[in-house]
């Protein structure tokens, strides 16, 4: 992979290195010293959770750009929470990762920012302090910030980049910044203000792997990674939430960058000495500056719960002239009966200004779709779940079945089967050679 292109002055780089060293030193102190000091003081002041998970994914078909059919992954997570006083809490967590298909870095280093193209071998998952005083809560540091109410697509969830190394099985990435929440009316009204000094992008599939769908006709043309232009500015957002008797709703505003990129694809001629000239496609990721105006609502009713969420995303056109303006909306119905949980809904999109030729946008890719999910809890240790998505155009279908069983207090086995079908020009359908089965064994501690 080609190194990501960034213009950073020497001074900035030095400052960043210093920050990294400081972060690492703080984290080592946090992980090694503080827990041992507080562990025995009281269960109230120290909590820990973590797991070791090994998984194997089996793809029965080759992809155009990837013939690897078996992918193994090992993940270790440990998180600790320390509350030395009722008004303050510290949280820290590490993720350790190994992958048989080069999706994780091989070099053993602690990555605090987690903004690279590969999963870090050791990532700081979270590192934050939370201060509370009466109705005011301030979280500072690396943390998870989730907005929105719907599950199918969450258009207002702007501070939640994801790891899309596997597009249909994603996980959230933490962001670094400050979140302040002020509550009023006995907690019924909450005003959240978020400021992130540094942008965190979503992690995209590797270009030489199957979750980057390459049309069969383009298989002969090499695709090279021309890196990403990571914006240097800060991001901010405000959200007001109200919890009423029969309704809860939120209004939100976001001024920052889309964590999903516009793609700049350019044909290049790779002319090297002593080799014939070779055509290639250079892929560069640009993260557009956007403004997002959002709203979400949940109305629990006697027979079902209605959830709806919408966001109008407008490009801050002066900064990123090539980005789209669009409205995403989701209407979702939930019903829980006995041990069954049903969720079904429709996600739609209305583009008001189309400017980008190529994007990687799973949120938009899943719009104009009907999505349904059903899960059944068999007993205290076993559950099954079914999930499906079908594009309105009929261009793509995705179905997933999952069986999960716990054994004892620590072990859980999950077996998953995923079928994807459809046309190559559809967001879901393009992954039609990525149907797979997976087994994961997790030990929680």
């Amino acid at each position, binding site marked *: 992979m080609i190194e990501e292109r960034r213009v950073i002055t020497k001074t900035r780089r030095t400052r960043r290195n210093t920050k990294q060293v400081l972060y690492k030193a703080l984290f080592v102190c946090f992980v090694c010293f503080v827990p041992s000091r507080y562990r025995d003081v009281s269960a109230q002041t120290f909590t820990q*959770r973590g797991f070791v998970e090994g998984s194997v994914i089996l793809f029965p078909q080759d992809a155009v750009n990837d013939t690897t059919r078996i992918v193994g992954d090992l993940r270790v997570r440990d998180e600790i929470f320390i509350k030395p006083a009722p008004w303050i809490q510290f949280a820290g967590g590490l993720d350790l990762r190994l992958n048989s298909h080069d999706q994780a870095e091989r070099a053993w280093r602690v990555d605090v920012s987690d903004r690279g193209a590969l999963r870090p071998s050791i990532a700081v998952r979270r590192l934050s302090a939370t201060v509370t005083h009466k109705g005011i809560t301030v979280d500072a540091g690396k943390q998870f910030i989730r907005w929105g109410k719907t599950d199918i697509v969450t258009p207002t969830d702007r501070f939640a980049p994801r790891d899309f190394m596997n597009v249909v099985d994603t996980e959230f990435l933490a962001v670094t910044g400050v979140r302040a929440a002020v*509550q009023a009316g006995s*907690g019924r009204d909450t005003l959240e203000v978020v400021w992130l000094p540094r942008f965190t992008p979503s992690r995209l599939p590797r270009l030489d792997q199957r979750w980057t769908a390459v049309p069969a006709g383009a298989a002969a043309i090499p695709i090279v990674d021309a890196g990403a232009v990571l914006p240097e500015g800060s991001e901010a957002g405000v959200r007001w939430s109200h*919890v009423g008797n029969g309704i809860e709703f939120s209004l939100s505003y976001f001024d920052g960058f889309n964590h999903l990129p516009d793609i700049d694809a350019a044909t290049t001629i790779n002319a090297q000495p002593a080799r014939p000239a070779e055509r290639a496609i250079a892929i560069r990721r640009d993260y557009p500056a956007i403004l997002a105006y959002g709203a979400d609502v949940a109305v629990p*009713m006697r027979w079902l719960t209605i959830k709806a969420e919408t966001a109008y995303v407008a490009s801050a056109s002066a900064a990123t002239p090539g980005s789209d303006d669009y409205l995403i909306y989701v209407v979702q119905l939930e019903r829980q009966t006995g041990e069954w*949980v049903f969720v079904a809904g429709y996600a739609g999109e209305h583009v008001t200004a189309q400017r980008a030729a190529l994007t990687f946008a799973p949120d938009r890719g899943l719009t104009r779709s009907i999505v349904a999910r059903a899960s059944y809890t068999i*007993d*205290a240790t076993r559950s099954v779940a079914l999930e499906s998505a079908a594009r309105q155009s009929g261009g793509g279908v995705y179905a997933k079945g999952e069986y999960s069983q716990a054994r004892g207090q*620590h072990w859980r086995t999950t077996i998953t089967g995923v079928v994807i079908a459809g046309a190559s020009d559809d967001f879901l359908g393009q992954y039609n050679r990525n149907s797979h089965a997976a087994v994961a064994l997790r030990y929680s501690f």
Partner: protein
Amino acid sequence: MYALLFHFFFFFFFVPFVPSWPTSVHFTLIAADSGRQIVEEAQKRTDAKSQRYEGVLQVFDGKGKIADKRWSFERLGSHGQSKVVLRFSAPAEVKGVAMLIVNHPDRASDQWMWTPAIERDRRIALQDRSTRFFGTDFSFEDLDERDVNQYDYTLAADNDIVDGTACWKIQSTPKESKSSQYTKSILWVRKDNYAFARIENFVKDQVVRRATYSDIQNIQGVWTARQLEMADLRRGSRTRLTLDKLEYNVPLKDEDFTLQAIRRQ
């Protein structure tokens, strides 16, 4: 199990007289007023500004124990208007999962669940409440704290014996305004200390869940069952809840019973 009664598993409700009275429930209706008075007295005797304990849940199926769960429980406020935060500490895979329950005297409680794995809270809707709580034999509705005013009561027997102890047997039915999975419940209240001895919950004329209270102790002046066993008679499974480190009137703050607060681990 007084306290347990009112902040945990509470069900009940009743219509003083049901025209097609189920043949499986043979008892004599004595006096509606006295039934309500007994339950009111039971509630009064469990009155505490706040409560805290650590609960141990053991789930058994027909073949034996299949799961252990632990949680911490904190309640602030009086019956029917209290707020509860319940936080799981075991098994390891559900550590940090938390519930906020806001009880109301005149309607069903509001409940939210915080799931740390996805860093989101989710409101548990009314229709969800018959669902078993985390695979145990308690349903979400059983977590509601019910005010006596939400039910009608009838004293069904003045001297019924449960585990060798004299009890009042009281039938309760939810009022029309009350949404419940249960058609009615039968409560056994101990005469010696007004603690609940047993509760049977009915769907139509069939007993579906039976709660049995034991190890009743006087904790800070409140007679409290330290152990409750809930049997799901349709599934043939049961869940035992044991209360450890139980305290009443502990200093708790209102700001710790909000959606923002349950995000904190």
